[in-house]
């Protein structure tokens, strides 16, 4: 099982929306390489014919009745927003210039 490189960590950080500093990249790459080396043991069972378990309870599609109920007011829902305007979340620019 291959380890993890600094370049891979940088790519994963970008995917995870983490603007890591250079020294963090060095440090995490080293630590993650050790961790991945240790957890890679699970692949011992990769070839075995064992069904996967994703959850301890065998539940599916738990639904509630489709009824109108009281919920948060717009003021409550926006109470923790870093910025809001006209009962909406105010966010930085999402689309590019062109």
């Amino acid at each position, binding site marked *: 099982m291959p380890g993890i490189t600094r370049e891979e960590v940088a790519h994963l950080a970008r995917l995870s929306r983490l603007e*890591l500093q250079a020294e963090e990249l060095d440090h995490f790459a080293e630590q993650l390489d050790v961790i991945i080396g240790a957890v890679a043991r699970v692949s011992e069972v990769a070839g075995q014919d064992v069904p996967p378990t994703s959850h301890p309870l065998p539940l599916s599609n738990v639904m509630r009745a489709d009824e109108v109920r009281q919920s948060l007011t717009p003021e409550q829902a926006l109470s923790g927003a870093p910025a809001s305007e006209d009962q909406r979340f105010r966010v930085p620019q*999402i689309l590019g210039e062109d």
Partner: protein
Amino acid sequence: MTELIKYTAAETASAIANGEVSAVEVAQAHLDRIDAVDKKVNAFLHVDTEGALAAARKVDDKRAKGERLSPLAGVPLALKDVFTTRGIPTTCGSKMLEGWIPPYDATLTRRLKDADVVILGKTNMDEFAMGSSTENSAYGPTGNPWDLTRIPGGSGGGSAAALAAFEAPLAIGTDTGGSIRQPGAVTGTVGVKPTYGAVSRYGLVAFSSSLDQGGPCARTVLDAALLHEAIAGHDPLDSTSIDAPVPAVVEAAKMRDIRGMRIGIVKEFAGEGYQAGVMQRFNETVELLRELGAEVVEVSCPSFTLALPAYYLIAPSECSSNLARFDAMRYGLRVGDDGTRSAEQVTALTREAGFGDEVKRRIILGTYALSSGYYDAYYGSAQKVRTLISRDFDAAFAGVDVLISPTTPTTAFPIGERADDPMAMYLADLCTIPSNLAGNAAMSLPCGLAPEDNLPVGLQIIAPAMADDRLYRVGGTVEAALNDKWGHTLLEEAPAL
């Protein structure tokens, strides 16, 4: 009056119900204690003096009017800062949520309030419940009341330390890989991870949704049972909540009889890495169980040796997805929004500034494990291991009623010792993780002090899913026998703060 803080929750509730003491006096005694010792312990991130006294006054009013009081009415509690509390800050130990005031209560919070439990405040924890030492809190580490230079366990170190420091007789924790049981073990207190789905996760800030489980922390097995009954039960707001009656845990905690029970020692949880004094106290407890009339046998669960690796793929994978919600748009921290940066850049700068190292490591690890080239080898294999572990438990429980092991391989380690060595830190949860992966029930309770360092050792008891009452039956019996043997409770040996 200072002795009020030494009362168990059961004693406190009964003293209030009988009019020996008012709920306000009880609340004030604990607030005074927090004031006196918490600068040293750092168990609390937020103390809600006003709210606690108001809740206590409500109990005194009810009693004055002759209204029926609930079993825990007026009993103070320390709430892990991972459950939302309406109008009270909820940080999860992270800078990401500094100053955030939730607009709603978690179901667990609501149930505590409905039971007239007095919530004293919110307790310190590893950031987003990721860690085994509470050192990953953005608000400084919590000290272990047995030795303030040592860790109180994690992630719920604040809750366990609050109990051991007599700042509260009850506390709430969450257990994803051992975050209730391991702090319980290293602080000489009782912690229970109920069956997955027993306690609602609505309003519990998610770390690893298929593993996270809230549960009771206390100084006695009976107190844990009383709290268990108050918080467990079906919640339509949590789609993974179990719709079945809560096992009769309070009754079980009072049985004090384990004659004829079959108990299995997990063979894999011993050997290299296990502290001699931990094994000594564990083996003595095994003998005690035999003297109390249980049949103790050794059982093998070979897949448990793969539990730790599987956990450190599954939990980070779910974490990388769950923590995507911290995007700096709707609540929490926002950094770098100066009008020149895009939303995506602001998100990345905020997450860099708001998350600590362990959270970042796990997000990256989880993103790696879920990426297309590695999914089958890592996440897929970890899910297979999860099946194998459940099968090992099923096979073991076909022959025994409960399983036992040490809760942790070692006693509390010094603050700083494993802080920058993730793999060493992860080993603290070696014995507790299998129950999270299988979703069954487990308890840790004190079984003595390790002779070499005079620090608490935890006994772990594991029961099948939905058989949580067995934990309390065995735990209550062992606790009573040990207290008889010692002539006092273990916490009475803790040094004065």
